[in-house]
């Protein structure tokens, strides 16, 4: 009964999306005013129905209702409750339902609160949102119905992939989805603005919180995903340039570019066409990413829900939405009046360079991800990895970071270098000193060395805008920028330190054996069998001491899950402020010895602290922008009220 209610809600939501599209299109004419009045309520109702449908799926998973096919295939009654609740998005159907739910919630929110744009532009935007939504509803209802029944119901479910039975998973996909879907809002606004020819600073102010919000979620999602892969896969790496990872990185790069160009449009009414194009591209990248991951068209080490038939469906959707938007853009771009002018040596100039570099990075990642697909069409199999991405990416990343350190110091419209010469030269001098010092002392490889030096330049450059300003009167948005840019420096430092100074040891140890890895002495005390709710494991008891200090115990495990049967290695970590000890237990080696893999990774955690700082900066900016918007709104309302009084 619950499943049928959920399905009915989904069908109703689809119908409302149809109404929303119809009203949005017909409402553009005077004769359609009746229908136009229905658009906002339809969007809100659709959001409520979708949320209800998603709620029923969560309930079905929580109760392990095995008469529902999706639950039987992906859950198990012995699974801990938290992973049952996270179950709906550990599979294709459920995650698509989550996608459409978040998207309709965003649409409902726009319908409820957004009053700044001309009504026709808003109608066109909501129509575009409904048009995109309809495709995904059709996808769900036709080819991936999450509420399908199984008759007769099996006695037990198949269980969830053990790699995914982790708290990191419970939060990772919903976070990324909020990001992807937030970009769909920017996409719809861009289409709405193009259709009604309303590319104005007001448009930029309206989409900015959405872009910022989506970007924060993407940043958090990628950071969390990277850490999850780092400790769960047990390989000790934090980024593999895998298609699945690239799929989330590409929208992030596009969103980062969009975020900066939106600021230019809002503040200076420049970069109009470019901003619209980025709005289209950012969401396109989310969809292409979803397609790559879901269709199995490229081979990925962690594609968890692959199906070529569904790939065809998504490809058709991609063609309609991305193709349609690009064609619309190509025909309308000429009608958008040129924005304000500026010189290269200005804040806008720096932001343009940033945009070009980010777009180039996006192109590089896209090319690297799709290159195997291209050569395979000619019968050649290749795999593209770090030897391509790292150096080629650095070529564009390094100049961009240099501009990042300088740009925020420049004034809008036009500025001269002489004004900011002193602090900039100081920052780059420190960077050069770090470069030379590290090269002489540590003899690092070129890329980590450049990364380390640039981290210093960006670190100093990012806090320079605070010089001579009262912290109390600093706008929250500016503080957010400083924090986010500083986060970039922190993350970059972590990456450079990890790649230059990591130490790896692979040993076969007897009980009582001690291994030295970097500043750590690790002793294997014993190996014990342990049991969990749906797994058994061999657990190594290691005692590790840092530079001869008091030893701490850590326990890496080799786990065997029995539903479905699979082995995973649970790494165990010891975190200090200056790095992490990473330990993995492998198999038994001739009877009385155990394979241990130990890493000392200096400052590796700074990568994720940096990511968190970047997201925090975004959050501060978002709060700052929303507060200003609210203030503006009350002022406007007060002015309007006073006018009414005067007229009366």
């Amino acid at each position, binding site marked *: 009964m619950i499943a049928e209610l959920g399905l009915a809600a989904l069908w109703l939501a689809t119908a409302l999306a149809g109404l929303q599209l119809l009203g949005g299109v017909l409402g553009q004419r005077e004769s359609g005013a009746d229908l136009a009045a229905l658009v906002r309520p339809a969007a809100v109702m659709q959001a409520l129905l979708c949320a209800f449908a998603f709620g029923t799926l969560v309930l079905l998973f929580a109760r392990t209702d095995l008469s529902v096919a999706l639950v039987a295939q992906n859950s198990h009654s012995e699974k801990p409750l938290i992973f049952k609740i996270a179950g709906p998005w550990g599979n294709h159907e459920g995650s698509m339902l989550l996608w459409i739910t978040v998207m309709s919630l965003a649409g409902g929110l726009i319908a409820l609160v957004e009053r700044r744009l001309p009504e026709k532009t808003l109608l066109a935007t909501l129509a575009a949102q409904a048009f995109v939504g309809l495709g995904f509803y059709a996808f769900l209802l036709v080819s991936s119905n999450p509420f399908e029944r199984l008759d007769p119901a099996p006695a037990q479910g198949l269980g969830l992939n053990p790699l995914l039975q982790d708290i990191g998973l419970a939060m990772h996909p919903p976070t990324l989805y909020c990001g992807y879907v937030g970009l769909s809002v920017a996409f719809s606004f861009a289409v709405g603005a193009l259709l009604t020819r309303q590319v104005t600073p007001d448009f930029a102010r309206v989409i900015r919180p959405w872009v910022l919000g989506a970007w924060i979620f993407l940043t958090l999602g990628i950071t969390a995903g990277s850490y999850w892969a780092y400790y769960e896969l047990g390989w000790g790496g934090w980024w593999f340039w895998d298609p699945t990872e690239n799929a989330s990185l590409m929208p992030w790069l596009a969103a980062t570019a969009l975020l900066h160009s939106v600021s230019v449009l809002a503040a200076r009414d420049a970069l109009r066409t470019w901003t619209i194009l980025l709005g289209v591209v950012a969401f396109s990248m989310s969809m292409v990413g979803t397609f790559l991951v879901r*269709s199995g*068209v490229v081979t990925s080490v962690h594609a968890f829900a692959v199906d070529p038939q569904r790939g065809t469906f998504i*490809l058709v959707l991609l063609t309609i939405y*991305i193709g349609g938007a*690009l064609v619309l*853009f*190509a025909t309308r771009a000429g009608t958008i009046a040129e924005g304000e002018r500026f010189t290269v040596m200005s804040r806008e100039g720096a932001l343009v360079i940033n945009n070009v570099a980010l777009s180039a990075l996006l192109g590089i990642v896209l090319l690297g991800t799709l290159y195997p697909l*291209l050569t395979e*069409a000619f019968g050649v199999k290749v795999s593209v990895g770090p030897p391509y991405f790292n150096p080629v990416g650095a070529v564009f990343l390094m100049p961009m970071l240099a501009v990042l350190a300088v740009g925020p110091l420049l004034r809008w419209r036009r500025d001269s270098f002489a004004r900011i010469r002193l602090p900039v030269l100081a920052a780059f001098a420190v960077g050069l000193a770090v470069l030379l010092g590290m090269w002489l002392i540590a003899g690092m490889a070129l890329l980590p060395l450049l990364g380390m030096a640039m981290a210093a330049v960006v670190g100093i450059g990012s806090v320079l805008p605070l010089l001579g300003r009262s912290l109390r009167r600093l706008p929250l948005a500016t503080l957010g920028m400083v924090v986010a840019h500083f986060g970039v420096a922190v993350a970059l430092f972590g990456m450079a330190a990890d790649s230059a100074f990591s130490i790896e040891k692979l040993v076969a140890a007897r009980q009582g054996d001690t291994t030295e890895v970097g500043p750590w002495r690790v002793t294997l005390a014993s190996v014990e069998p342990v049991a969990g709710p749906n797994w058994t494991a061999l657990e190594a008891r290691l005692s590790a001491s840092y530079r001869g200090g008091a030893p701490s115990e850590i326990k890496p495990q080799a786990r065997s899950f029995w539903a479905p049967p699979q082995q995973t290695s649970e790494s165990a970590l010891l975190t200090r402020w200056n790095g992490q000890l990473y330990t993995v237990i492998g198999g038994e080696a001739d009877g009385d010895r155990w394979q241990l893999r130990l890493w000392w990774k200096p400052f590796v955690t700074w990568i994720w602290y940096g990511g968190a700082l970047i997201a925090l900066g975004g959050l501060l900016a978002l709060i700052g922008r929303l507060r200003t918007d609210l203030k503006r709104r009350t002022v406007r309302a007060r002015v309007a009220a006073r006018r009414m009084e005067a007229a009366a």
Partner: protein
Amino acid sequence: MIRGRIFLWGLVALTAGLFGLFAYQLSQPKDEFIQSTMIGKPIPPFDLPPSVPERPGLASGDLADGQPKLLNVFASWCVPCIAEAPNLARLEAAGANIVGIAIRDRSQDTEFFLRQNGNPFSRIGRDDISAVQLSIGSSGVPETFVIDGQGIIRYQHIGDIRDSDVALLLEKLKEAGA
């Protein structure tokens, strides 16, 4: 403005091309295995030292002595290799001459593995850096090659030898001239 137009329509064309590529690749069957490009070619020259004392090592000359052979790429650390051991024994009992290459393995580990799972090999070479493995076009363990009497690679089997594969491998061995 004209340049802008060209750029924009270029973008549309590029996207169309990309989606065409996607559509083409989706319609292609996906093969999960990477076949060796060495099939039909002579085995490259190599000379591997013995992996265990009781068997001689393996050189490319041993594979061109007129008698077709099965070349099994294995390792003691490889779980599917344990699974395929009974079927290698069956192949040996059926008269196949099997030679092995132990990949990235220590002698004492290989010896322990052979004691546990039986030793169907007439020769075992020791390939510590996967050099020979890569040169014959093998991308993982276990893999089994059919080599004819002239040292030419005739067939490649990827993954463990299942019960159903035994007859096929004997057939391929026969085709190679046994």
